[in-house]
């Protein structure tokens, strides 16, 4: 394992210190327990939004804390859910009296830890709603399983809900919007290489020189299917088609197309994938109303990409366009 780190145990805390050193204008960092909140938190009277999850997905979530997006974020160990005490303290630090939305990715660990935290926060008199994001079509959604994973839609939900909260919308409203985004977004990802959890020291899985994993999540866990590596055009179809089907997207609709690098795939390849995605959507008369291209929800240095489509309506488009000023997403400010 070769990484630009000092020791595996210190990865998360030192990166957090780096964030603190760089972005003091945007965020305030707490080190024990670990969380970060926007510099002006708590914003009185505003619905607050926090998220959290394992580290290793940067810039998510810490890079999305700031005006127009998250009020706070809780980084866990690499690929490991944060703990309820982090979430509780972060919830208290951002609550401006209008309640706090927890945006939770659907992983057993995240869900259980956020549940514990929400119980504790409610016990201290803070209004908390939790919305679980589960947009990954690679996983069969069933009553008898853990259900779909939360992946790319998380980034979109954090932006759209962040804008709504900034406009002064109530906790109930913002939570409903979050559910709407989740209901209208689906994702699918693939990997060309594995990644190495620093504390484990070796790749989570091994892929042959001409193999790829289709349907991976964001934790370096293997996907549903191992296949021979294929062209960008074939891979894009394998990802986009199940997403389009599952969303039931029809001719004339408009989407936000999010082409995400898992970390190790360079931008030049993402644009090739975007070009293919455009062709697939054009052929179905689906418009790309907005887009996001880059490494936003990653798995350390994993090579691969994911595609997320969000069915847009006028309100979501407007909220997407609203000013945002965070370390990783910024416009109109």
């Amino acid at each position: 394992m070769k990484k630009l780190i000092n020791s595996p145990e210190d990865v998360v805390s030192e990166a957090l210190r780096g964030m603190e050193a760089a972005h003091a204008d945007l965020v305030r960092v707490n080190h024990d327990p670990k969380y970060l909140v926007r510099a002006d938190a708590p914003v009185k009277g505003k619905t607050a939004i926090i998220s959290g999850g394992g580290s290793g997905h940067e810039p998510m979530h810490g890079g999305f804390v700031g005006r127009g997006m998250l009020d706070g974020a809780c980084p866990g160990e690499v690929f490991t859910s944060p703990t309820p005490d982090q979430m509780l303290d972060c919830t208290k630090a951002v609550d401006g009296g209008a309640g706090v939305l927890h945006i939770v990715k659907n992983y057993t660990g995240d869900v259980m830890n956020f549940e514990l935290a929400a119980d504790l926060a409610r016990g201290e008199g803070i209004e908390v709603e939790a919305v679980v994001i589960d947009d990954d079509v690679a996983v069969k959604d069933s009553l008898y399983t853990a259900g779909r994973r939360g992946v790319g839609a998380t980034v979109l939900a954090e932006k759209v809900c962040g804008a709504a909260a900034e406009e002064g919308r109530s906790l109930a409203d913002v939570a409903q919007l979050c559910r709407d985004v989740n209901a209208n977004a689906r994702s699918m990802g693939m990997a060309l290489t594995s990644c190495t959890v620093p504390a484990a020291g070796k790749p989570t899985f091994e892929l042959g020189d001409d193999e790829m994993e289709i349907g991976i999540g964001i934790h370096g866990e293997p996907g549903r299917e191992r296949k021979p590596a294929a062209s960008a055009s074939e891979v894009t179809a394998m990802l986009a088609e199940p997403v389009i089907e599952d969303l039931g997207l029809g001719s004339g609709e408009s989407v936000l197309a999010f082409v995400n690098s898992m970390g190790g795939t360079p931008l030049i390849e993402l644009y090739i994938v975007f070009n293919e995605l455009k062709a697939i959507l054009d052929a179905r008369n689906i418009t790309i109303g907005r887009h996001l291209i880059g490494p936003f929800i990653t798995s350390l240095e994993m090579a691969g990409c994911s595609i997320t489509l969000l069915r847009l309506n006028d309100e979501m488009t407007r909220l997407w366009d609203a000013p945002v000023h965070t370390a990783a997403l910024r416009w109109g400010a």
Partner: protein
Amino acid sequence: MDTIGYRDVVGWLRAFAAVVSEKKEFLTELDAAIGDADHGINMNRGMSAALGVIDDHAKEDIGALLKAVAMKLISTVGGASGPLYGTLFLQMSTRTGGASELTAAQWVDALTAGRDGVVARGKAEMGDKTMVDALTPAVDAAREAADAGESPAAVLRASADAAATGVEATIPLVARKGRASYLGERSAGHQDPGATSTYLLLDAAAGAIGAG
């Protein structure tokens, strides 16, 4: 010995911390196959922290000790195993508050409460390929042994052996809860990491307390 004393419980927790540290890589490898390669790391982070709690614990109150360990695990482990192990210890603590020693039957009651807590939190059933697959047979075997009037040492040994069998039984299963469930059919053929650490927990009890 016909009871499990406070010192036995301390010995058990220390032994569990030691074996988790020793088998950290092994547990993580199991998790790499069907999860995200952190179970050993998670459990070791938690149990190392718990050691501090155990050292600092003065009062000979088994319930208070188990509760302190539970809270430490909840705040240090994260992932799925943090709330699950936290809940296991937390529920055990509710049945052992104030006690400085436990009969075999009391132990079985506590373990049963712990198992029920895990099931309530994680909603896994037997056969879902989770720690419940080790915990439930262990509880059943312990109860049977206790009902038969066996010594605490024998009860603990019986539950550890049943857990071992439960772990074996996870191998062919297709996971239906936790991260491994995303793999679908591909999860079959691998031993569940959480069930494995649960076996280590119960085996540590048999070793530490049986020997004590």
